[in-house]
């Protein structure tokens, strides 16, 4: 791995910010550094070459695609999905008949499909509206297509079994040309949208916001700003789910939430 100095990282964030309006200034340092170093390695380019390339707008999509982390699984943390099924969704139904869910930073869509499968098995898919957003248009296209490597389905199936789903994950996809193609009807009430958590607007109100293992790529300043947006985007008594090793404790807005499940890090908005 090539060693990159902070000055170079600053130059990159500066160009991307002024030229394209994406602000990576408050991304967590070491993972951002690894992403940049990965881009240099994959394209076999020097830092100077990358700086030149960043001035070509055609390169932006590739850059965004590589700088963001897109590693995810269906039913990641099966115990989280059980809590969602057994406690959180029933909790929402006490207040609302329709369930509005936002997947913030949906990446390649595994979490969205997991949600759709869970809701379908609960007989609630038709009562739900899901919005899945990401800043990376390439990855959104991949999420929309619902096509995954068969190899990944092994892990997804293992997670699904630990989640204790009703059937088998195999019932939700067909194999075409060696790929798993997800059942399109799962996505009937899902809309995918490009949205940047850093500078995007608040666009709707939700009963449940999922943003798991996304804010770990931000520094605390940015985590605070994004949390304010989530707070505003939630109905009162709506739920926020973050990754199991993330915490709201340090955030300014923490007192407007209570923790509903500490192990799985599900919070509930209790104050406007």
């Amino acid at each position, binding site marked *: *791995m090539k060693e990159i100095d902070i000055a170079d990282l600053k130059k990159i964030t500066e160009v991307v910010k002024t030229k394209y309006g994406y602000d990576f200034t408050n991304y*967590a*340092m*070491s*993972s951002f550094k*690894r*992403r940049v170093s990965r881009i240099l390695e994959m394209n076999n380019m020097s830092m100077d070459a990358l700086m030149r390339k960043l001035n070509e707008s055609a390169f932006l999509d590739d850059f965004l695609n590589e700088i963001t*982390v897109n*590693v*995810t699984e269906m039913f990641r*943390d*099966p*115990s989280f999905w059980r809590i969602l099924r057994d406690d959180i969704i029933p909790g929402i139904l006490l207040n609302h008949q329709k369930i509005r869910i936002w997947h913030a930073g949906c990446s390649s869509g595994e979490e969205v499909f997991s949600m759709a499968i869970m809701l379908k098995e609960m007989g609630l898919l038709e009562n739900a509206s899901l919005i899945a957003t990401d800043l990376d248009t390439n990855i959104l296209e991949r999420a929309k297509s619902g096509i995954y490597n068969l190899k990944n389905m092994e892990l997804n199936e*293992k*997670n699904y079994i*630990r989640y204790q789903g009703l059937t088998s994950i195999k019932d939700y996809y067909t194999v075409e040309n060696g790929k798993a193609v997800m059942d399109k009807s799962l996505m009937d009430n899902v809309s995918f949208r490009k949205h940047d958590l850093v500078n995007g607007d608040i666009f709707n109100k939700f009963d449940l916001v999922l943003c798991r*293992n996304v*804010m*770990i*790529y931000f*520094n*605390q300043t940015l*985590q605070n700003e994004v949390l304010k947006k989530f707070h505003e985007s939630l109905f009162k008594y709506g739920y926020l789910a973050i*990754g*199991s*090793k*993330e*915490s709201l*404790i*340090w955030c300014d807005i923490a007192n407007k939430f209570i923790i509903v499940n500490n192990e799985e890090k599900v919070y509930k908005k209790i104050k406007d």
Partner: protein
Amino acid sequence: MTDFKLDNRYKAIVIGGSAGSFQGIVKILSNLPTNFPLPIIMCLHRLKHVRNGFVEALSIKSTLEIVEPFDKEHIKKGKVYLAPSNYHMSTELGHFFSLSTEDMVNNSRPAIDITLGTTAYVFRDKLIGILLSGANKDGGLGMKYIKDRGGMTIVQEPSECMIDTMPKAAMNLTTIDHVLKIDEIVEFFKQLHKQYK
């Protein structure tokens, strides 16, 4: 016993281990002085779907508190930190951790190279890196980073390892200051502790 000729320049210890390292880790942790003055940052290969139990198993005999840090948790002296399952754990300038779900490195998440490399970047010549038994080369490069930045490098004596691939990878990539058996590592920690009294 060897005199390691230590001083009190060090601010942190980082330990990597994989297959066959568990018993050694337990022995080290159970023999630490209760007021050990440095943070100990550990990255051990572990089952990715088993989130609980590992800290508990290590804690039974440990004299110090062991925690799996949250993202952005500050590093404090006298605590033992363990990389959580299915996350990479990096040390950041400003002495806190960040977690990430990036691709596996050396087929591993958490990857030892990431924890060792980022901790070396932050603590430079004030870091001691220890690599124990393991069946792949993860950690080898991390030890090289530590050495390149002026830190001290220690590996478990290969003949004592259940699987010696890991320490040998480090020995091939960089200079190792001390090749030690677990009992000698325990003694090393005792001598180090004396420097801070």
